[in-house]
C-alpha cells in the first residue's frame, strides 16, 4: 500500500501470504472437512485457535492476502484478554498493548467528567488495552501456526457461493475461488465469519434486523509523539471543531486514533478527503498544545449500525462476529463481542464435532449470543444517543447535562461511556438453576449464566508448595470445572465417580477444584488456598457450596451442597442442548 502524499505507513510489516498450492486446493472435492471457517478476521482466527486448543481441526478461508489493513478495532476488554489467555495468545498482546483504566470528557474547554472502569487489586488483567487490530490478528495467526496440524489457513481464497445442504443433514458445499483456480469444498459445519458484508448471509437470504443508521464518523490514525497518558479522551463541542464530538485514543508505536462524527448534510466522499480531515485534526491538536509534529497514516469513514440477525444458527451454518451483528462504535463492543462469540461457539462446536454433544447445543450458542447482541445494541444505542444526538431532544438534554456537570456531580454518570462489560446469559437454556426450584432472586451472585469472577488464590502443588495465582487459572479449553468451597476436608466423594462416568460415557472432562481457607488436604484435581476468604466471599459461597463452570467461564449451575447427581444432570442437560432436549432424547 503506497501512502498518499504526506502520509506515513503503519510501522508494521504486512506480510503477504501466497494462496494455497492449487493441487492442495483441488483436493477439496475429497473428504468432508469437519469445520470450515469463512473469513480470517478476528472472529475466524479466534475461533480457529479456540477449536485447535481443544484438538478440533478447522479450515479457514480468507479472501485477502494479509491481516486487516488500517487499525480498525483498537480497544480490547478484560473479558477478551481472559479469553485470549485461555487460548495461549495473551503474552504478546499484553506485552505490546497499552493498558488503561479510565478517561476524561471535556465540554468546550472544561473537564466535565473523569471516569474509572471497574478495577481493583483482585484483578489480574487491566480493564482495557489499546492494540491495533492488525497486531491482534497477526498474533492470532502466529499462535495458529503453533497448531499447524489442526488449522489450515488458506489466504486469497474467496467463497463465491454456498451450494447446498445448509439446512439439511448432508454436508454443506461451498464454491471457493483463488487466483487461477476455483473448486468445491464440502464441510460438516460452516461458520460464517465473513464480516459486515457477509456473502454467506446473502447466500442464505438472511437479513440483519434493527436500525441501519446511527451516524457516520471519520476515523483517522495519525503518527504523533507526545506525553499524554493512555486514556479515553472525549471533547464535546471543542473550540477546535465547534458543534462536533471528537475522541482520541493512544495506540502502541506512537499512533493515535482520532474520530469525529460528520453531519447528516455532509458529503461522505468529501468528508474523508485529506484536505478536509487534516485541518480539523490539526486544529484540535493545536488546541491541546500538540502543535504540528504529526503525520496522517490512514483515514476511513465508519457508518454506525445497530443490527443483528435474529438467529445465528441456520442448520449447519453458524454466524459469528460482524457477519452476525453490527454494533455502534461507542462502548467498544464490536471486536470484543466477536471474541466472546468465538469463545462461546468453540467449546460447543468441538463437543458436537466429536460426537459428544447433540447438535442442539449449537442452538444455545445462538440463544446466548443473540441475547448478548441485544444487550450490546441497547448499550451502544444509548451511548450513541449521547455522543451523537439523533434529534433536538437528545441534543438539548445533552447540553443540559454538560452545562450542569461541573457543579452537579450526580449528572456526570450520564456522560460516562458505557464500556463493554461481560454479559450474563440470563435466559440460557443451559442454566441449571431453573430445575433446582429456586428462582433467580434466591440465587447468590454469580448466578447461573454469569461469568465466574476471578480473584487471587494460592495454588497448592502435590507437595503442598504454594504458588500465587488467580481462580480463573483453573479454566482450560473445552473442560468443565466444578469448584467446592468448604472449611476443610475432601470434595464430595461422589465427584470422583461422576468424573469417571462423564469421561467413559460422554468423553467429557470434568475437573474438580477445592477452595479452602487453610492448608488444603482435599483430593481435588486442583487445590486453592483462599487465605483471607476473598474467593468464598466473592462467590457468595456458603459452607459446602459447589459452583459448576462451563469451558467458557460462565456459571452453569450452583448448589448449596452438592453430591454428584445434580452436577452430572446439569452437564448432561448441557450436552443435550437444554432440558427440553433431554426429555425428548
Amino acid at each position, binding site marked *: 500500500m503506497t501512502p498518499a502524499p504526506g502520509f506515513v505507513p503503519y510501522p508494521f510489516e504486512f506480510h503477504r501470504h501466497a494462496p494455497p498450492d492449487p493441487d492442495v486446493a483441488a483436493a477439496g472435492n475429497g473428504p468432508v472437512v469437519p469445520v470450515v471457517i469463512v473469513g480470517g478476521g478476528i472472529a475466524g482466527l479466534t475461533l480457529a485457535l479456540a477449536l485447535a486448543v481443544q484438538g478440533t481441526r478447522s479450515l479457514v478461508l480468507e479472501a485477502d492476502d494479509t491481516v486487516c489493513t488500517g487499525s480498525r478495532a483498537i480497544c480490547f476488554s478484560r473479558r477478551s484478554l481472559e479469553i485470549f489467555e485461555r487460548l495461549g495468545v495473551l503474552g504478546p498482546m499484553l506485552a505490546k498493548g497499552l493498558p488503561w483504566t479510565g478517561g476524561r470528557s471535556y*465540554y*468546550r*474547554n*472544561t473537564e466535565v467528567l473523569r471516569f474509572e472502569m471497574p478495577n481493583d487489586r483482585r484483578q489480574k488483567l487491566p480493564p482495557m488495552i489499546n492494540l491495533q487490530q492488525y497486531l491482534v490478528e497477526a498474533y492470532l495467526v502466529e499462535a495458529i501456526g503453533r497448531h499447524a496440524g489442526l488449522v489450515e489457513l488458506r489466504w486469497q481464497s474467496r467463497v463465491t457461493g454456498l451450494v447446498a445442504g445448509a439446512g439439511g443433514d448432508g454436508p454443506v458445499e461451498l464454491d471457493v475461488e483463488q487466483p487461477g483456480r476455483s473448486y468445491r469444498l464440502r464441510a460438516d459445519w460452516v461458520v460464517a465469519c465473513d464480516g459486515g458484508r457477509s456473502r454467506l448471509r446473502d447466500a442464505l437470504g438472511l437479513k440483519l434486523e434493527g436500525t441501519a443508521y446511527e451516524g457516520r464518523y471519520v476515523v483517522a490514525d495519525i503518527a504523533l509523539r507526545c506525553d499524554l497518558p493512555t486514556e479515553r479522551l472525549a471533547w464535546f463541542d471543542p473550540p477546535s471543531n465547534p458543534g462536533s464530538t471528537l475522541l482520541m485514543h493512544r495506540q502502541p508505536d506512537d499512533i493515535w486514533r482520532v474520530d469525529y462524527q460528520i453531519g447528516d448534510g455532509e458529503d461522505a466522499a468529501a468528508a474523508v478527503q485529506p484536505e478536509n480531515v487534516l485541518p480539523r485534526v490539526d486544529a484540535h491538536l493545536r488546541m491541546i498544545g500538540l502543535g504540528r509534529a504529526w503525520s496522517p497514516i490512514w483515514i476511513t469513514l465508519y457508518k454506525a449500525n445497530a443490527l443483528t440477525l435474529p438467529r445465528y444458527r441456520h442448520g449447519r451454518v453458524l454466524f459469528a462476529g460482524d457477519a452476525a451483528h453490527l454494533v455502534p462504535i461507542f462502548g467498544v463492543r464490536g471486536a470484543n463481542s466477536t471474541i466472546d462469540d468465538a469463545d462461546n461457539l468453540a467449546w460447543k462446536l468441538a463437543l458436537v464435532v466429536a460426537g459428544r454433544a447433540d447438535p442442539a447445543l449449537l442452538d444455545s450458542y445462538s440463544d446466548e449470543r443473540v441475547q448478548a447482541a441485544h444487550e450490546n445494541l441497547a448499550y451502544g444505542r*444509548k451511548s450513541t*444517543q449521547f455522543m451523537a444526538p*439523533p*434529534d*433536538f*431532544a*437528545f441534543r*438539548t*438534554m445533552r447540553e*443540559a*447535562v*454538560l*452545562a*450542569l456537570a461541573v*457543579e*452537579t456531580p*450526580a*449528572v456526570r*454518570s*450520564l456522560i*460516562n461511556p458505557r464500556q463493554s462489560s461481560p454479559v450474563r446469559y440470563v435466559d440460557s437454556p443451559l442454566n441449571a438453576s431453573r430445575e433446582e426450584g429456586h428462582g433467580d432472586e434466591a440465587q447468590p451472585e454469580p448466578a447461573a449464566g454469569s461469568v465466574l469472577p476471578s480473584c487471587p488464590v494460592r495454588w497448592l502443588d502435590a507437595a503442598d508448595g504454594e504458588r500465587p495465582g488467580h481462580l480463573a487459572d483453573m479454566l482450560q479449553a473445552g473442560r468443565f470445572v466444578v469448584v467446592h468451597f468448604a472449611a476443610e476436608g475432601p470434595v464430595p466423594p461422589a465427584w470422583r465417580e461422576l468424573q469417571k462416568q462423564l469421561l467413559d460415557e460422554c468423553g467429557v472432562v470434568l475437573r474438580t477444584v477445592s477452595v479452602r481457607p487453610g492448608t488444603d488436604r482435599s483430593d481435588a484435581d486442583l487445590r486453592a488456598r483462599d487465605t483471607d476468604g476473598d474467593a468464598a466471599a466473592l462467590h457468595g459461597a456458603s459452607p459446602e457450596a459447589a459452583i459448576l463452570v462451563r469451558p467458557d467461564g460462565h456459571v452453569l449451575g450452583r448448589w448449596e451442597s452438592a453430591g454428584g447427581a445434580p452436577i452430572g444432570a446439569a452437564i448432561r442437560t448441557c450436552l443435550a442442548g437444554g432440558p427440553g432436549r433431554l426429555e425428548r432424547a
Partner: protein
Amino acid sequence: MTDSELDAAYTALCEALAAAGEPAAMPLLARFALLAMVEIDDPEAVRRLIARAAAATEPR
C-alpha cells in the same frame, strides 16, 4: 436514584420531547418543571434549583 435509573429517566424524557416535536417541547418541559416543583414540595429548594439552572446556561 442509581446511575442506570437516572439514565433511564433521562432517556424517557428525551423520547417524550422528541415525540412531542420541537415546537411542543418547551411547553412540555415547563409542565414537567411545574410537576417536579410540586413533588419537591420545598420552596427554598425550588428557588435554589432555578438559580442553579439559570447560572449553568452559559458554559465556559
